[in-house]
């Protein structure tokens, strides 16, 4: 179903807000106030669009790029929390919290995190639920064996899943074009007996449409879909790591910015006035700025915990 005006405005609000929050977090890292961020600038559209296409009881495993945007768009995760979490003052967007939309953690090894999402889907099926599991990972991670095994397993069991490849054209310094000779990752779907859909990862409306269709298909019992969202990240891989790309490549990313495009479209179609849009942006900026102030004042949580003995270690590590 095409988005109605209200939804489009909500989409813009989420895009604008998460862009402002992400830009702020990225800047705080560049200036040394925060440390060690994988900037999601340029990935807002995919996070927000997919977030709007799933139910709270669907399970989403988020990536290190668009997770914050997705959590925000699904509801229950404010921009304030997004900023404060960077200061160690609020749970991160990965946390599964009661009353919040259902999420699945990732782990520090890319690719490795994908198979467990297949298990979530299998468990839900065992319980007779009609939920869908969505798993995000990058173009780089897609070359890991575990991802292959997971997608094949989902296909073979016709699981209600969506595999979402955020193809930002790079894995740290490795251009996707050197990491695989495949013209696109969507082409891999046939090898697992599922449809593969290629979509412009900058375009939130197009993204929402394919995500909604894939989720619906899964919910109808027709099995998994592989969606490849092609986009360009604005920043280097992570704070402190040199970006080897040409300025032209990065300019291209800004030219295709989906946040601005949706803004222009909504204004062009008369859904929002310039002033409405500005008001949306300003509100987000105010929330973000206040959160930064709050975080800075609180300071980092750098306290060294008390000495730990074997019993503490056991309790933290084992359930029983």
């Amino acid at each position, binding site marked *: 179903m095409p988005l109605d005006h209200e939804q489009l405005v909500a989409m813009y609000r989420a895009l604008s807000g998460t862009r402002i929050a992400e830009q702020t977090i990225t800047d705080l890292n560049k200036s040394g106030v925060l440390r060690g961020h994988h900037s999601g600038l340029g990935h807002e559209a995919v996070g927000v669009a997919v977030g709007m296409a799933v139910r709270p009881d669907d399970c989403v495993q988020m990536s290190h790029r668009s997770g914050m945007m997705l959590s925000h768009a699904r509801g229950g995760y404010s921009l304030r929390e997004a900023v404060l979490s960077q200061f160690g003052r609020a749970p991160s967007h990965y946390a599964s919290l009661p009353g919040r939309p259902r999420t699945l*953690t990732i782990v520090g090894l890319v690719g*490795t995190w994908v*198979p*467990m999402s297949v298990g*979530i889907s299998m468990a839900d099926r*065992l319980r007779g639920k009609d939920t869908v599991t969505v798993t995000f990972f990058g173009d780089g991670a897609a070359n890991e064996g575990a991802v292959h095994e997971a997608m*094949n397993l989902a296909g073979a069991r016709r699981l209600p899943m969506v595999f979402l490849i955020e193809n930002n054209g790079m894995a740290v310094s490795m251009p996707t074009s050197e990491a695989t000779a495949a013209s696109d990752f969507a082409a891999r779907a046939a090898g697992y007996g599922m449809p593969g859909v290629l979509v412009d990862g900058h375009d939130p409306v197009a993204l929402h449409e394919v995500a909604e269709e894939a989720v619906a298909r899964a919910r109808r019992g027709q099995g998994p879909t592989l969606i490849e969202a092609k986009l360009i990240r604005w920043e280097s891989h992570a704070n402190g790591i040199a970006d080897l790309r040409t300025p032209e490549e990065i300019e291209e990313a800004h030219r295709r910015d989906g946040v601005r495009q949706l803004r222009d479209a909504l204004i062009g179609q008369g859904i929002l006035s310039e002033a409405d849009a500005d008001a949306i942006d300003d509100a987000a900026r105010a929330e973000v700025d206040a959160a930064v102030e709050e975080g800075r004042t609180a300071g980092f949580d750098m306290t060294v915990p008390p000495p730990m003995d074997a019993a503490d270690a*056991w309790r933290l*590590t084992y*359930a029983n």
Partner: protein
Amino acid sequence: MGSTLYINAINRALHEEMARDNEVVAIGLDIGRQGGLFGVTRGLFERFGPSRVMDTPISEAGYMGAAIGMAMEGVRPVVEIQFADFVTVAFDQIVTVAAKMHYMTGGGKNVPIVVRLPYGVNVSGEGYMTGAGPHHSQSPEAWFCHCPGLKVVMPSSPADALGLLKAAIRDNDPVIYFEQKGLYYTLSGEVPEDGEDHIVPIGKAAVRREGTDATIVATGAMVGLSLAVAEKLAGEGVSVEVVDPRTLVPLDRETLVASVRKTGRVVVTHEASQTGGFGAEVAAVLADDAYASLRAPVKRVAARDMPVPAGLAARAALPGEARIEKAVRAVLGK
């Protein structure tokens, strides 16, 4: 009590636990209609159906990860890896995902999986698969013992195979369950009657034979060999105690230390290769906690540090009764 084969005890545990709790599922290669390559899962598919007894593609990392995901939702998957050797392709999922989940989520999620690993060679040299060579005969328990977040058990008798598997399935942490595949059809022993809910608690060692002159700490198939050695030495008036840790992590230090306090002399034996093996941990624990009681060097008897040879040649690399006996004599100074 009745006598049953080691393999049947494992099979019984699976049947009992799946009947008891709908959340217990089994997943692995050829565990369904085929009943498992070794026959461990016989009858499960017919009884519990394909939604709870799941054959999978040859994708050990994939299905281990899927089992972990299921477990995070409260399902209790028992995962079969066809040969323990093949766990290397699923290693990452176990040590990176399963072992650290409880910690990473601040206790919010736990991973109640059991990973069944048919390991080792047929030490007696008889029966099925005397030795299928370097990639089908290994005993990799030490890798898992050095991974916080995992529990590791290794039953040496049908009764323990039954009781430890049932305990492992009910445990809320990931448990790596080592079953010695050479014992499947060669070892039988007493088990409680059908219908009795026999649980062997995780973390409790067993004193297999009491003795006063020396202790052998033995795991898996080495327990039987050690008992034979003890029996033989008893004929010479030497009283050897045999202790079987059964659970490797968490280790029952108390029982081990108590034995060595009594005997003052100890030999540690396992089927895996020596360097960095589980026996090193036992020796290290005793060299610390039981230091004051030690009256001889701590000796280890383990496989040679080499790949496990194929066929009967495995005997040359593996620890056998002769080497265990020699080590006991050495710690006794005779």
